[in-house]
């Protein structure tokens, strides 16, 4: 099914910092197809976590959704009343926060915390909740005997599994996971990703995975949304974004990443400079100050160009992307600006 399951249109989220407004997300648009894993990638401060949180409307006190739409099941999540949104959370859309440790209360057993969700929000009886908890633990690969343990008795990876179980409690259709494996060691990371993929296929879930790591995207995602400085630089299938990136930022990101499968003599190429300060973003294309292909026209707002069906790119030079890709593969291209 290619029909969009969740559709974000021109989303804007602003933070109030003192007397200034910072647009952490400034006009993001993308679609999430049903039954897929979408990777939301970008560097710190690019707005990926803000987007993820805006989708569940669990945002900071000083933040507001200042524009755009979040279309889900015929409703605009950016506008529906809080009560209606609250009914959707957990039942339809579940959120796995960045640190599983913080999402679990250290003074209660895991069973109690799962039961709380199942009984309060799912309306289950004590016995039903118990049965469901065991089922959930089984699903995420933890011995149900450990239900009566406290969060501190679990290792980091186990806690992440508990967090996944908690998110799955009420059979949501969409799971949003914020950097679910970032704090974990590579082996545990791989095992958790495998688990997530297996559950996603088995339960037909849609998953949005927020990450800074393109190799995580490469491992489990079907689609990619690349964000830079509050805007979506490009979005499309994972294959296309990684093997044929069309935005210079994505090309640069690919070059900067070490690849264990690549040649030993390979040189990593950084993108010089740092992401812009969102309190005072550059006019026109926000990647312009770091982009080796920037032209004068990049000083004006870049257009969204579909380089292929379902592969929009926010770049003035998107039509030349095939040629730019060849240039971008050379280290000298990126060094020239340093």
């Amino acid at each position, binding site marked *: 099914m290619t029909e969009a399951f969740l559709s974000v249109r021109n989303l804007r989220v602003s933070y109030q910092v003192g007397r200034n407004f910072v647009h952490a997300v400034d006009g993001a648009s993308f679609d999430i197809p049903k039954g897929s894993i979408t990777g939301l990638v970008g*560097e*710190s401060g690019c707005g990926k976590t803000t987007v993820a949180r805006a989708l569940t409307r669990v945002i900071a006190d000083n933040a507001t959704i200042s524009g755009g739409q979040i279309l889900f099941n015929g409703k605009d999540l950016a506008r529906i009343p809080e009560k209606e949104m609250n009914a959707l959370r957990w039942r339809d859309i579940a959120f796995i926060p960045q640190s599983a440790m913080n999402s679990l209360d250290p003074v209660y057993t895991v069973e109690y915390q799962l039961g709380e969700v199942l009984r309060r929000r799912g309306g289950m009886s004590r016995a039903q909740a118990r049965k469901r908890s065991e089922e959930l633990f089984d699903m995420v*690969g933890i011995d149900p005997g450990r239900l009566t343990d406290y969060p501190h008795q679990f*290792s*980091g*990876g*186990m806690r992440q599994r508990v967090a996944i179980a908690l998110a799955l409690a009420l059979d949501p259709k969409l799971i949003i996971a914020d950097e679910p494996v970032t704090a974990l*060691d*590579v*082996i*545990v*990371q*791989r*095992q958790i990703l*495998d688990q997530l*993929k297996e559950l996603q296929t088995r339960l037909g879930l849609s998953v949005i995975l927020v990450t*800074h*790591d*393109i*190799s*995580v*995207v*490469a*491992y489990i995602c079907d689609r990619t949304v690349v964000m830079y400085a509050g805007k979506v630089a490009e979005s499309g299938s*994972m*294959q296309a974004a*990684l*093997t044929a990136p069309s935005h210079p930022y994505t090309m*640069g*990101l*690919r*070059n*900067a*990443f*070490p*690849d*264990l*499968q690549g040649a*030993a003599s390979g*040189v*990593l*190429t*950084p*993108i*010089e400079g*740092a*992401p812009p300060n969102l309190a005072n973003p550059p006019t026109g294309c926000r990647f312009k100050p770091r982009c080796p292909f920037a032209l004068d026209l990049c000083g004006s707002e870049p257009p969204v160009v579909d380089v292929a069906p379902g592969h929009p790119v926010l770049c003035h030079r998107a039509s030349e992307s095939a040629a730019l890709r060849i240039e971008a593969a050379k280290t000298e291209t990126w060094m020239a600006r*340093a």
Partner: protein
Amino acid sequence: MNIATRKTDVLVSVHDARLHYRVGGAFAAMRGKSTVVKAVDGVTFDIRRGESVGLLGESGCGKTSMGRLLLKLEETTGGSIHFDGEELGKVQRKGLKTFRSRAQLIFQNPFDAINPRFSIRATLSEPLENAGIPRGEREGRIIKALELVRLPEPAQFLDRYPHQLSGGQLQRVVMARALILQPEFVVADEPVSMLDVSVRAGVLNVFRDVRDRLGLTAIYISHDLALVRYVCERTIVMYLGRIMEDGPTEDIVHQPLHPYTKALVAAVPVPNPDQSHDPLPIGRGAPDPRNPPSGCVFRDRCPSAHARCAAEVPQPRQVGTRTVACHLF
């Protein structure tokens, strides 16, 4: 620094080094709960001058503790570490001062490694001041060090404070501080893990470049084999305080021998769509430093564990270019 005039080829020699902590207090001991954590447990290796060695392992494997032992930020509770022929345990006062200027640390978190109240000038002056460099010479040395780490127009940074710099710039300042006294030996503890992907490569390139230019001997501590491979020709794989495998990085990447290394190499994520999704050759669970298994510490997760692994600690054995601690070899 004239390397040729040195007597021996080995700069750092670690022999059966141990770092055991006592955790919990007298009460835990009375209740019979194991109270000794063996952060480093019988580690032996040599580092030759000019060599770059990666210390690879998961969190809790003892790699950071090992790095701290090498810099005498922690004292060994057993075994010995020699730096240029001198035993670190016996280095005191004046000797320690000299050692501090010869061996340096590059920190993991640049946002934490520089005092937020100090300007960049004050930050870089501190080691110079301690080494007794006269006031007049300091500024020149500072500028030189900042140029070395490729901070453009270094003079403009001198009076700035850490919060005015980006992560990549800060990490270069941290490197400049480590290099300003022209050390021979540098331990880098996950120097890019706190940085954004797009700037990591820049810092890594500076590290490689400076190391080659100054002929540094370097230890690079990381959990990421891909990064270790980028900067080190040799890799030491640690697990629960012990060395599992030690050898040329390329050999380890392409043909890991130890079952743990095999799992580790297979688990490293790669930024390519076509990659193996096979289950890892390793059991679930996590290493518990407070309660390691008997014999081989990896046996509870090892797919090829057999009876001997529980009974006997595997001793490191030479296998081709490598040293492996496993009963399979």
